[in-house]
């Protein structure tokens, strides 16, 4: 009996390991897409708002939608399976919590973009808020869609009928996500207070941090009464002076030497 059980158990664990790995990959990609969607959404209404941005938003949204549907099916079917061993269930529940939180973030962002689309139309550029942005979100969208480079040639045709159709599809998608969230809560009972996270409390600082950008940002960090800008430029000027003095010294040494 135990032998037979072990065999079955091994097969099961192999199967569920793959299931877990698959699920984790899907959820990770959804989190990435949601993060990119948020970046793109923060550009709406600003001076870089354009039809291209809206198109990128749409594409990102569609990708997120596809991912969430597949994750929903995957996780629901496995969590409703009563024969799932305990550790696998815990992992699944963690993925479930991550998935539902991402869905909530996506839902909020979609609602915000929908409402802002009402107020700001990309056609009327004079009314856009001058937020100080210069570049678009093409690189972010490329990251979201996992494409090496977005095809810049495809500029969408600004047809009015298309805009209203776009809004209708957006409304439908928002309600679809609503229903998905509701369904999830109905079908699977995950006790959130029982879920324990694995990860660290603090996110690890990434090794490949751009020191130049850090310097730029620390410039903005203000201590009252301090003038970091002036200090920076002062150091630059001092360095320049030092280099000039050094050059003058070497030249004079050469002159003395050769004369």
């Amino acid at each position: 009996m135990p032998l037979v059980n072990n065999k079955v158990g091994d097969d099961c664990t192999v199967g569920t390991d793959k299931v877990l790995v698959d699920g984790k990959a899907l959820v990770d990609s959804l989190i990435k897409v949601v993060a990119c969607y948020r970046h793109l959404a923060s550009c709406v209404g600003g001076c870089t708002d354009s039809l291209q941005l809206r198109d990128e938003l749409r594409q990102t949204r569609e990708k997120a939608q596809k991912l969430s549907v597949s994750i929903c099916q995957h996780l629901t079917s496995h969590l409703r399976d009563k024969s799932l061993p305990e550790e696998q269930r815990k992992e699944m529940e963690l993925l479930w919590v991550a998935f539902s939180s991402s869905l909530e973030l996506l839902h909020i962002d979609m609602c915000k973009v929908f409402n802002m689309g009402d107020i700001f139309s990309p056609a009327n550029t004079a009314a856009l808020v001058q937020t100080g942005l210069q570049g678009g979100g093409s690189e972010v969208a490329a990251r979201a869609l996992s494409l090496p480079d977005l095809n810049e040639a495809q500029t969408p045709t600004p047809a009015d009928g298309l805009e209203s159709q776009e809004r209708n599809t957006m409304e439908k998608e928002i309600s679809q996500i609503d229903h998905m969230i509701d369904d999830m809560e109905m079908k699977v009972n995950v006790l959130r207070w029982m879920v324990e996270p694995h990860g660290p409390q603090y996110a690890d600082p990434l090794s490949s941090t751009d020191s130049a950008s850090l310097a730029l940002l620390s410039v903005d960090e203000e201590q009252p009464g301090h003038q970091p800008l002036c200090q920076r430029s002062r150091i630059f000027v001092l360095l320049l002076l030092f280099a000039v003095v050094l050059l003058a010294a070497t030249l004079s040494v050469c002159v003395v030497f050769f004369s």
Partner: protein
Amino acid sequence: MTIRNTLRDHGQRYRPRMACLKKAEKVLLEMQDPKTGVKSQPQRLVITTIPHAITGKEEARNFGSMLVALGYIYPLQDHKRLVIKPDASLYRFQTPYFWPTQQWPVEDTDYAIYLAKRNIRKKGILELHEQEQYNRLHKWMNHKWDFIVMQAKEQYRAAKERKKPDRVVFDCQERAYWVVHRPPVRTHTHTHTHTHTHTHTHTHTHTHTQIMIFTQQSIMRPRVKSSVSIGALVKYCATYNSHDPFLSKCLPSNPWLTDDVTYWTLNMPNVEIPTKMRVERWTFSFGELLSDPRGRDDFRLFLKKEFSGENLAFWEGCEDLKWGTAATMREKAEQIYKAFLARGAPRWINIDGKTMEVTVSGLKHPHRYVLDAAQTHIYMLMKKDSYGRYMKSPVFKDTMKKAICPEEHKFSDSQLEQNAKNRRPSLSPIILRQQEQEQRAKMAASAPVDITQVMSKLSKQGKEVPPRPPPKK
């Protein structure tokens, strides 16, 4: 866990703020117009220049400070103080994604992600209040923490895809958003008093102090155990069950059902002979006795026999004052004082020294409720003393013996129809009130006899003869 952005209870409270925000948004959109709007200049940082920075001008400072406090504009230097300074410091418009509109509640999850991102960028060195918030959120949203850390990392990586100036701008925008919505405790009052004085709308501190006052007052309120209060309710229902014409049989017959008004005529306020049910109700409580005019008459008769009618007269005078017209209040208060409270008054009532002091000092500036304390004292006196004696008195026993118990009507269908046809309106309330006033005048005319008056009469009559107390029945 709220899934949708439903603001069912909060909508009511935030509505005034919503109107202000809508106006602010409109003005902000107008400010963007390149011709008529605010002039902007590029901000010079070390490596790049970032366009669209504006400076504060004198006349627009107040309005600008309001916009900053709300979160529509953020300062580029000194980002923690949300005011417009009258120097050349620069400000920038906030992107609409971060505008403070009420439909989008500020989520703790977002704040946790922001703090995690900040932690990554600053390599673990967060400010004190940020650290505290981070730890608190870690405790409360522990189950989501993996997600939060992952989302923060992904957002950080996505931000790196953008150009450097855009990255800086986005970070400034996010930081400004969180300074408005999660201000550090030190500057909390500063920003909120600014918001209060500049926007004149209900802010969070205003409603919070209201809530605090309300909860403190409700703690101080006297509380009754629900078992006790439910017991009292049950007792009340049991006592009054048989007296309710709708819950039990009504003798002779319920006028609403049979259209026969005998019940009402038998229970008129000033009827000579009351019904048995009515008399029984007087035994339930002193309040019942006093509120029924016939019962009050009976009680008055009893007190007359006891020569202590001044208490009831005083109580009635106080009621008159409370419910009377404002024009007559001063006169009534004076009359009552002269008749009952003054030293050597003809119908002096016996209240304790403190209440007398309070009442007399209150009478200098009389208002409707100036005699409340004295009235309550006299009421309790009557309730504890006279009421008990009344219940045992021959007056009451006599009334109870004489009380009638009408026979139940048994109408046939044709009689019911006849009754319905003969329906007549009752006496007009104006006539009733006139009758009431006539009766009151009659009562006032017939000299009320109290012990003080009797004593004074006797003392006047027989100065030589030693006064002896009149025989009490």
